[in-house]
């Protein structure tokens, strides 16, 4: 048996019944949805800003970002506060309820065609037993398209 020398910690969340994951070191906290203040004149997937303990944080709806059909927010809806390159954002997901360690070699960098619309934002996929986790690429999620 090989020893698991390097594992990475992922936070697993769901979007439209599929499981996605984000690296735990990119996540500051997970919050419930509070009042979101709409910011006019921004991209469709930017739902607005929230007050996170005195800091104004913009909110991105991941369903909308991935061009999935939007759903109304409910009990299970969570906001994952993520940070990258000093940019802090909240990602709205259907639910977030799992933190797992996976060996680094379980990650397969070349994404197969899982759902073409999401493909752009995939960093890697991980197969764990029967589960398939899609590791999102936060950098690309946050990138603002030139066209806008």
């Amino acid at each position, binding site marked *: 048996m090989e020893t698991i020398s390097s594992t990475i910690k992922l936070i697993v969340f769901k979007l439209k019944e599929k499981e996605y994951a984000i690296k735990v070191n990119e996540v500051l906290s997970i919050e419930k949805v*509070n009042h979101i203040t*709409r910011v006019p*004149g921004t991209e469709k997937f930017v739902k607005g*800003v929230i007050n996170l303990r005195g800091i*104004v944080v*913009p909110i991105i709806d991941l369903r909308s970002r991935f061009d999935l059909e939007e759903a109304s927010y409910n009990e299970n809806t969570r906001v994952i506060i993520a940070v990258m390159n000093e940019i802090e954002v909240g990602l709205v997901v259907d639910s977030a309820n799992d933190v797992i360690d996976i060996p680094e070699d379980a990650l397969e960098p070349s994404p197969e065609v899982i759902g073409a619309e999401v493909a752009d934002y995939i960093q890697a996929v991980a197969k764990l037993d029967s589960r398939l986790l899609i590791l999102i690429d936060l950098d690309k999620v946050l990138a603002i398209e030139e066209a806008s």
Partner: protein
Amino acid sequence: MEMSQYLEVFIEESKEHLQACNQLLLELEKNPADLQLVNEIFRSAHTLKGMSATMGYEDLANLTHQMENVLDAIRNKKIKVDSHILDVVFLSVDHLEAMIESIASGGDGKMDVTEVVQKLKIIEDGKGLDAVQSAQEDALEQSKDSYSAIDYDDYEMTIIMQSKELGYNTYEVDITLTEDCLLKAARVYMVFEVLEKNGEIVKSSPSTTELEEEQFEQSFSVTVVTNEEKDSLKSALLKISEIENVEIKAFNSPVQETNIKAGASIVDTENQKPIRSEEETVQSIKQPTNKTIRVNIERLDILMNLFEELVIDRGRLVQISQELNNQELQETVEHMSRISADLQNIILNMRMVPVETVFNRFPRMVRQLARDLHKKINLEIIGAETELDRTVIDEIGDPLVHLLRNAIDHGIETPEERRSKGKPEEGTVILKAYHSGNHIFIEISDDGAGINKDQILRKALSKGIITEQEMVGLSQQEIYNLIFSSGFSTADKISDVSGRGVGLDVVRNTIESLGGTVSIDSNEGNGSTFSIVLPLTLSIISAMLVEIQNEKYAIPLSSIIETAIVKREDILHTHSQQVIDFRGKVVPLIFLKDIFEINHTYAENEETLSVVIVRKGDKLAGIVVNSFIGQQEIVLKSLGNYLTNVFAISGATILGDGQVALIIDCNALIK
């Protein structure tokens, strides 16, 4: 030895000394004969040399040392001050500044200074020319001269100055012991005892320790502050045996007057000087001074942040108490609000910095520019003591540099041109800061050529900034403001000095991003004035909260003129816009629900509209909202790094109920 703990102090003080050098050098240039100035510069350089040698910055010490030599030669009238010499000295100060900058940003402060050192050496050696003459002068000077042979540092000077103000005399007592004196230290002790009985000893030369160790020949001198007369002091001293001679001179400081002027800064540095043994003895006659401490600006920022949290909670408490309608609670909350308003004032004041910190680098720059452009320019600075929030100070430097360069390059004419126009050859640029209400005004005016309207219009047309139709109805102000459009440059000659047309629009953007405005007034032939209006502070502002459908927005009070209720039938329709007649002025209406694409959740069939009249410069607009919520102090928060450049939104704030409200940027709404 671990020096890092002193590094910060070293950098701060070095900067202060260099700034002082700069200012004094400029003055010296105006009054080359003023040796007091040279003395002061010398002292600054001397301190700098000592500090940098201690800290181990050799290049810095080397250069200051050489500069000091030149200054010393000037001071001793071995060389005459001329602009060539000053240029080299200025150059060395520039180098020194660069080195300090490098140290401040974590570098090693090393730099190749050989060239400047060489130049300084040449100047120092160039005394051959009028050496004979100056030697004669020297001798003459020395005989009538009561200048002290002892170097006093700032601290000692302060004591001397202060005692003088209190009516004490300062004497330099030269004491010569007999040649066969055996117990020199004992005699020194006795002399000190006599002197201390009659007054306070400020300084001795050689130092006290050296005297105690008998490290001197026959004579030593002591500076003493006393209310005794010269003669009685002398006779008291002569009573001590083995003393051959006592010479008492009244101390006459060559730098006395300037020192009094500079009193504030000296008192300031006094606090940072290492405590000397003399301090205890002099304490008794020292005037009570304003005690200051240096606080890291970061700590003030933290304080400010904490206070901002408090303001948000205060808003929340006010709201809760209103809902609960409990009188005791309401009274307490009101009281707390008042106290926190006082607290706010104090904290904001602590963050205030005099604009001087920005202004004082301008004289040098103007001097250089004037030389480069072969113009004669006199820069007058008025109101440098006006205070501004540090965040504003940090940002305001570059725009001001730009406007000054603009005034000097494009505004002021060449001396020949000025002469032909019957103006004095020397152009005047006035930089003026003052305080009025909640705003700071900064004006830059020159007595140059002024702005040629036709030229601006032609340029604007050719650059496609305006069309011929638009051109017709423009007021004078509007024409001037065209200068601030991007892609506009009026200078026919593109020079290195002021921009390539990328300048003034950047100036305007910077100032508007600070919540300020900039405008121009000009009188062709007689010069122009650029006026900048800035808010006192950026972090907490007063705002009007309004509701549009079910969204809340904040409008900064600074841009609001008043609020009005307008009847629907009073709205006039022009071809493309709805306007109202507001006190005789036609004011266009801005429907935020359209601009911000707010969902029409409920139909509007109200007879009246609530309108907030806002202004930008002298343009007005009416923002149509659903209702006014009220006026409130709000804390400005940025939208973060992700949402940048949101149209017509300048930031966000957190309301009493914890929700975020966006702050409307009226400047963007009014075109």
